[in-house]
């Protein structure tokens, strides 16, 4: 039995459906991300788990107990908000200890637990400050300490990193993940940042228009997207529209702009119009006359980002985006004619959206 279960959850606001029949199981100790663009329903889902929003249909079970209509103050969950929602009129100690105070914990025991929680996020000694006197990163740590101080069974994170600068955000990803593993606390993270979701999660639920488009490990989600949306949303990808010529046991032969590509179909019943996908880092540059070159074309754009080169190449198949790791030697310059190659196993094929009810 899963620790947290969402069964047939929907949320409607008048005519607008924010969430459409979601089923989700979260295991004890798991770190699960709800990933999607704004308006996909990920925050609404989290708010229903926290009890701030009541579902229109469905039930939510926490450790076997029906909490669908339980009030938020009875649920005992730790929540970290996007704005941090610290109490500006209380010190850090007051903020972190608030939940314990509400549980009528004695002052001495409370101080101990507050110090412990601040220690966890490396904020010792700042307990006497007011939120206004802290930096953005410190405020975020206070918000995390405040949620953890109550030792909740479930930790809910609502885009907690979106107000931090890039470098700090990367540090917090690693740190928060290690805290979560150490405490073994079941965690749900809401984010629109796919790197964040991949770095931290055991599993990712990719959400799209109020439904879950894909639920799998970060690696599976990236390597084997099950829907065109998941494929486009997780990382960059090249999309080549084509039509299925024939389909055998393992591969589908797809006609893309006059060239036939052999694509593993992974058991999908693809037919008619489809999209073929390949990740930029799976495309390799080769000399035009090398054996095994799949297409040739001219480099139109070349960008250096430090760890890699990003190239746009106009080929007979269409424009391809190619990522080359920086191995010390720059790739050919803009305007150069090059060949591109890949392994057929790195190609993916999905039915075109809206064409076959696959979306």
């Amino acid at each position, binding site marked *: 039995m899963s620790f947290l279960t969402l069964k047939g959850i929907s949320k409607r606001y008048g005519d607008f459906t924010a969430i459409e029949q979601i089923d989700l199981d979260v295991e004890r100790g798991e770190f699960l991300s709800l990933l999607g663009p704004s308006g996909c329903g990920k925050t609404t889902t989290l708010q229903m788990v926290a009890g701030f929003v009541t579902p229109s249909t469905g039930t939510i079970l926490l450790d076997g107990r029906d909490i669908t209509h339980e009030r938020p*103050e*009875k649920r005992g969950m730790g929540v970290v908000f996007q704005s941090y929602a610290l109490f500006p009129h209380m010190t850090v100690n007051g903020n972190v200890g608030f939940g314990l105070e*509400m549980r009528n914990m004695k002052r001495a025991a409370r101080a101990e637990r507050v110090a412990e929680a601040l220690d966890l996020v490396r904020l010792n000694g700042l307990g006497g400050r007011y939120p206004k*006197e802290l930096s953005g990163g410190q405020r975020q740590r206070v918000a995390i300490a405040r949620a953890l101080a109550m030792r909740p069974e479930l930790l809910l994170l609502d885009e907690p990193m979106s107000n931090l600068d890039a470098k700090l955000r990367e540090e917090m990803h690693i740190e928060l993940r290690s805290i979560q593993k150490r405490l073994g606390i079941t965690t749900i993270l809401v984010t629109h940042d796919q790197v964040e979701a991949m770095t931290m999660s055991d599993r990712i639920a990719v959400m799209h228009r109020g439904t879950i488009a894909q639920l799998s490990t970060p690696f599976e989600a990236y390597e084997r997207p099950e829907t065109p949306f998941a494929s486009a949303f997780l990382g960059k990808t090249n999309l080549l529209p084509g039509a299925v010529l024939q389909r055998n046991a393992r591969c589908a032969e797809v006609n893309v702009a006059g060239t036939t590509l052999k694509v593993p179909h992974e058991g999908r019943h693809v037919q008619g119009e489809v999209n073929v996908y390949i990740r930029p880092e799976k495309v390799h540059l080769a000399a035009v006359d090398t054996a095994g070159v799949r297409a040739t074309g001219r480099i139109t754009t070349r960008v250096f980002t430090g760890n890699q080169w990003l190239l746009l190449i106009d080929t007979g198949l269409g424009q391809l985006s190619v990522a080359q790791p920086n191995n010390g030697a720059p790739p050919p310059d803009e305007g150069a004619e090059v060949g591109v190659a890949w392994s057929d196993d790195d190609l993916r094929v999905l039915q075109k959206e809206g064409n076959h009810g696959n979306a």
Partner: protein
Amino acid sequence: MATLDPERAGAAPWLLSAPALLLFGSLLLVPLLLTLVLSFHVFSDSQGTLATYTLRNYLEVITDPYYGAIFARTAGMAFTVTFLCILLGVPETIVLARMKRPWQSICLLVVLGPLLISVVVRTLGWQILLGNNGVLNNALQALHITSEPIRLVFTMTGVVIALTHVLVPFMVMSVWATLQKLDPQVEWAGRSMGASPFRVFRRVVLPQILPGVLSGSIIVFALSASAFATPALIGGRRLKVVATAAYDEFLGTLNWPLGATIAVLLLIANVAIVLGCSRLAERRFKHIFD
């Protein structure tokens, strides 16, 4: 915001604020100074205001229990009105802030309504409502709640009711401003940490709107302590407050120096209380709010 170097700014700041300074100087500071000077003049029943100076006016106002009672009545009135404005205005604002779109603007307009109506019309309205043969007393008697009319006009109760009515909007506007700055997620944060809606209000929301309540109180107190029209029209000639007493000295007994003295003392008392309160608030909330 862009700021100029002190050296480069030159005369521009002074020139730009010159019209406002001129207006304040000629229309506020000069009359105030003249009033102050006037309050030290000697008044003679037979010759009027004389060009000699004395402190007797101040001694008279401070020592005479007649004026003491007027000042005490005014302070009592101002504190009661302020207290009632907090009691009515704060919940009113919170309800307003949670209303949905068209209703919110409509109700806000209703709340601010009293400020849009001329003081004379508004006060006459209260006369009609509160008079011995007014709507309220007729209704109470028709329902057999009272057998004879409750005297409200020409009493302090009537004055306090009318003043509270017109001053509540200032409290609402001031609390409204702090409520708008309140992060809506803090209430959820409080709930998620095990606090009931009531405790969230008392421990999380109320402390954060307190600065707004305080500044609203200062405005309401200052305005009610120096209110003239409402006490004059609803309180009548006999129920004097400081502002009406000063008016009577000026236009009734024509003792201008004494009237000026009362006005100056009212100003000093008002400024002292208001400054004291805002100093206290500043020190209390300094490290919490920007």
